[in-house]
């Protein structure tokens, strides 16, 4: 609708013979969103005034020779505006409304969970907005800070380009909460990324014979950085004996995965978690 009006207004303006101007419009080149604006006119008599812009279109009667007053609430949305004054002839002018100073910003951080020790694994982007939700395109400086526990991991000040400031960095070495803070003047937004243990490392099992077979369990399962692998992670135990194979997918509980396997003969037990293999264990036949 706005575009249609704009096109109509431009066509109308073009059709008006500007050479015979009895009135003159002096519009400001740039206006800040939400600010009041006055447009002086020349000439005399009544005229029809049109305002066409993003989210606004207005027609009113004005007296030539007096100022045309535009309320700030008509100019909340950033973008190109067209003003048109028509009496016997039409005269027009355009101005651009820019975003006001940042009043809030959207801050997106990805991912929400990340394994430790991954390069370029955490990224974030901030978009400053003014109080009227216009994207602030004027460059501003956003400060990004990453802390794990109380230990600062990363800090960077970034100027926005085309309304966006972003960072990318590696995940930390310890599992736990990674706090990501973006700040701009007195504004700040906080996000959290869960740093989780990476793949199990040095997966080792111990076992013993019990009356109904063998009982095998892992030593506490850690990743290569020493972080405890989360409970619920599946560890697959495979027991191979002369007359067959048995497998159990057991979850880690309280740091240890445990399984009982029916096996009476000499048994070789192997262990894996995802695509990571552990040691092999040989258990003699039931006496």
């Amino acid at each position: 609708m706005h575009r249609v009006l704009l096109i109509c207004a431009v066509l109308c303006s073009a059709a008006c013979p500007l050479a015979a101007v009895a009135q003159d419009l002096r519009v400001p080149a740039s206006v800040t969103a939400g600010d009041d604006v006055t447009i002086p006119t020349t000439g005399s008599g009544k005229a029809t005034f049109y305002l066409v812009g993003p989210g606004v279109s207005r027609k009113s009667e004005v007296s030539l020779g007096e100022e045309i007053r535009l309320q700030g609430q008509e100019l909340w949305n950033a973008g190109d505006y067209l003003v048109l004054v028509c009496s016997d002839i039409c005269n027009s002018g355009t101005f651009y409304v820019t975003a006001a100073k940042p009043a809030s910003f959207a801050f997106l951080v990805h991912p929400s969970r990340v394994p430790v020790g991954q390069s370029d694994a955490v990224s974030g982007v901030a978009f400053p907005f003014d109080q009227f939700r216009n994207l602030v395109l004027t460059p501003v400086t956003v400060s990004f800070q990453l802390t794990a526990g109380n230990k600062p991991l990363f800090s960077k000040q970034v100027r926005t380009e085309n309304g966006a400031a972003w960072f990318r960095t590696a995940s930390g070495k310890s599992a736990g909460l990674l706090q990501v803070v973006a700040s701009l003047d007195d504004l700040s937004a906080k996000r959290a990324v869960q740093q989780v243990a990476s793949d199990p490392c040095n997966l080792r099992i111990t076992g013993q014979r019990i009356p109904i077979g063998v009982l095998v369990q892992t030593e506490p399962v850690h990743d290569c950085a020493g972080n405890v692998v989360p409970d619920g992670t599946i560890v697959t135990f495979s027991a191979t004996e002369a007359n067959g194979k048995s497998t159990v997918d057991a979850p880690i509980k309280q740091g240890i995965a445990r399984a009982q396997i029916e096996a009476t003969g000499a048994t070789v037990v192997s262990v894996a978690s995802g695509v990571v293999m552990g040691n092999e264990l040989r258990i003699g036949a039931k006496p």
Partner: protein
Amino acid sequence: MKFILPISLVVATAALMVLGLFIGGQARGTVGIAAGSAVYTPKADNAEQALKNLLADVQRRNWDRALAAVSKSSATDKESFIQEWTGSNGSLRSFSALEGFESRPLHITPDEAQIRVRLHWATPVGPLEDVRDFRLIREGDVWKTVLPKIQVPNVPAQVIPVTYLRWDLVSGGAADEWGSRNVDAPHVRIISMNAVDSAEGAVVMGEIVNEDTVPAFVNVNATLVDSAGSAIDDETSFDKINHVLLPKQVSPYRIDFPNISLKNVKSVRMDEKATLVPASADPVIGVMNQKIESDVQGKSVLHGDLFNQSGQTVNISHVIVSFYDNNAKVIWVADGYEDHALLPQSSEPFAVEIPKSVAPKVQNFHVVVDQYSLGRS
């Protein structure tokens, strides 16, 4: 004139209703019997007919007459006989119906017979087939079926401590600031893929792993693409996958493309989808005594026992197996449903058939068990 049509419709309806009553009376004799192969005859003067009578009564749930056709020498009682055929503990069998059967005598003498029966079950997970051998003996002038002792798992009263472990999801409210409380979907990865031609069509199979630290509901889709870059067909793994993968768990998947040959296929587009779901780490089901053997029909079958290591009943278990060749490549994925419930701390046997063309190449296999328990998600 205008009453002719309504009157003729009423007359025709009445005539059809009367006809239906008579025809319905005759049809009752063959309800539920596949291909009309088994019609009950009061006196079974041969072994095959005696077994058909027994199975026809089982279909109709006429337990007293079915038990009358069972030899007194059988080590079974009415309760366990009914339980054997109708299932218990919310097992797959208890949601199934015997749709039909085909019998084939293996060995018959004047006093004893061995008959192989292929039982066709209609179940919530699709039609299932079960092959059983029955022994019959002549008692006087009638043949009766000898049933072996039915092993009903007897779980002693006990307390099984379980360290409770599950994942719950908390969704953010609508009023949350944009981007402030996002939780990413789990990260899963296809670790192997193989496409082969089978008798029924093209098959795409492999394995997928949940690399994340949270449970994932997983589905694998495949699109076959021809040399012009156009999609030929698009299918999903449906139930040939363990959908709920716990962290670091690996599942086989198989996607069937019926009536499509790989010779028309230039490439395969794979697409794995994972969603964060609430899940529980229990029950743990062990797969014991796995071995490949030939069954009575000479087919290669992977046998084993499912052992429920937890303290809760698993109503329906689904076994999915990936078979590898000597290069550790997945050459087939097969599955099967266990029709008996898995009671706590008890075992049930399972068997999964391996196609003839694949069996000689199988060097190793990996079994996973998907499970469904009533009253739990």
